[in-house]
């Protein structure tokens, strides 16, 4: 029987939540006939994590020890290439995460495997996998197939698939020794954790979320003042941090923090998938955007097509 191989992702010795979603997706695909699920743990403390994948539908776990004490893209690449070579899985599932983006496309290109990233839905038919992913910047959905590909590597969007539940059943752990001693091509100088701040946006009940619609850093003091007046904490979208307008601690999204406040009041945020990844579980989402077609209106609870500064002024007046 062919295998559906899940590349579990860990950081600092702990499995990241997307790993459980990958296993959930693998189970569903296996029920449709894609093969049997096998979970690969690649990393220094892989063995210690094996217990954590004692999950429904998981019988077999591959443990691949690596020489480095942390993720290194070229080591991961070499390990996955060797696993595909040895086991010829029908599917390899990994997260559409920054780590996977650092090696999976290289594996796919070198092996001429099937490949798709940011996959939001996938099914299996006799002819193989059928995947869906966004096209034209989320405006449309593209349906993809992979004719003639023995192995297809899919990077699944975090949050898009149901995670698997824990199970009592035992797992069979297989240790795979690979020669990875010289695979690394980069050296870690330092890992900097997200700096902590007194006002942690992840703990705030009410976020005033600012996006590129604010135009320039000059607008920030005035919006900070508004936040103060209405009792909200300021959070921002990615571009404001990259532009140096706001501290990294305030960023919401895939490469920022995940938040779920009671109220997420978004001013001038378009609603990109990577932003959504960090805030879609907010209890009440209110969006102000001058573009009626902005994607954020699709998932906000309340929306106003308006100039954010006009609304900000009125809100400040009301709270005075």
């Amino acid at each position, binding site marked *: 029987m062919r295998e559906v191989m899940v590349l579990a992702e860990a*950081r600092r010795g702990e499995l990241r939540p997307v790993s459980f979603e990958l296993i959930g997706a693998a189970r569903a695909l296996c029920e449709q006939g894609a093969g049997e699920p096998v979970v690969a743990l690649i990393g220094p403390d892989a063995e210690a994590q094996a217990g954590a994948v004692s999950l429904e539908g998981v019988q077999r776990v591959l443990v691949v020890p690596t020489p480095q004490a942390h993720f290194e893209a070229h080591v991961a*690449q070499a390990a996955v290439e060797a696993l595909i070579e040895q086991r010829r899985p029908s599917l390899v599932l990994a997260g559409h*995460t*920054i*780590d996977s*983006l650092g090696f*999976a*496309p290289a594996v796919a*290109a*070198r092996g*001429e495997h099937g*490949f*798709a*990233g940011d996959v939001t839905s996938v099914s299996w038919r006799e002819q193989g996998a*059928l995947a869906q992913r*966004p*096209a*034209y*910047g*989320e*405006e*449309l959905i593209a*349906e*993809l*197939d*992979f004719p003639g590909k023995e192995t297809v590597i899919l990077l699944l969007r975090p949050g898009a698939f149901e995670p698997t539940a824990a199970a009592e059943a035992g797992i069979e752990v297989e240790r795979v020794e690979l020669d990875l001693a010289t695979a690394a*091509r*980069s*050296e*870690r*100088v330092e*890992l*900097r954790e*997200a*700096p902590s701040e007194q006002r942690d946006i992840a703990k705030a009940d*009410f976020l005033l979320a600012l996006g590129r619609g604010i135009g320039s850093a000059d607008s920030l003091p005035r919006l900070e003042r508004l936040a103060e007046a209405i009792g909200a904490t300021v959070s921002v979208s990615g*571009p404001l*941090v990259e532009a140096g307008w706001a501290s*990294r601690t305030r960023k919401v999204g895939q*490469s920022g923090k995940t938040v779920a406040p*009671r*109220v997420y*009041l978004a001013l001038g945020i378009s609603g990109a998938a990577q932003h959504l990844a960090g805030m879609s579980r907010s*209890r*009440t989402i209110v969006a102000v955007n001058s573009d009626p077609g902005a994607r954020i*209106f*699709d998932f*906000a*609870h*309340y*929306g*106003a097509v*308006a100039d954010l500064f*006009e*609304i900000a002024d*009125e*809100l400040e*007046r*009301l*709270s005075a």
Partner: protein
Amino acid sequence: MKILVPVKQVACLREDFGAGAAGAGNGAVELAPDTLVWTPNEWDAFSLEAALALNEGGEGETVVVTVGDERAEESLRAGLAMGADRAVRVWDQALAGVDALAIARVLAAVASAERPDLILCGAQSSDAASAATGVALAGLLECAHVAVVEQIGPDGERLIVQRQLEGGAVELLSVGLPALLTVQSGINAPRRPNLRAIKQARAASVAVLGLADVGLDAGALASAAGSRTVALMPRPRGGGATLLDGPPAEIAARIAAIVGEAMRA
């Protein structure tokens, strides 16, 4: 340092492309050519700026390359106006609509001929958003690579780069050359060319190559491609927001009431 900067002309749907226009019959969308608006990819201005900054005052050469039809020359000329030394465009009808892995194969053929010390790609393109072309290209060239980089600095013969991680953490890495980095948007302030530079770029020559010129054919592309698009469909709309309309004062009052209620609940 010789730096190769792949740039992409991206398509977005015209603003008035409504959900209504989509979904004829079986739910599939037909895209008429005039529904697309083409612009240079946002991310590529940042990778080019990073390249120009690294080569500032040095002996280096910065080359922009695109895989695209004539429309894509806008991206190349924007790059030339910013200060790139040369521009290369590769095109063949067989390249229409191909995926990131097939594009990477073509870029690999160009890079093998150009032999750059460093390749700077965008972290992603705003239309395909594969976020895959750069690392796929590095895989084919067997050079070191780091994805989603937000700082690049020289370190003797090597580079020190900072890559983003989920949750606000960052990793500092040292990589040797040749290397390929994918660059996050917003990490620098791309220079704005003056009118003279724009005019010169308009008149500059762009090397145009066909598939055969880079040693490839349609068959090679077909095996390189990672996927095939079978259909385009309208995106599923979310629940949709309850729209608050009226003058700003009225909207603000509604928002204040909604917030007040949500905070008490």
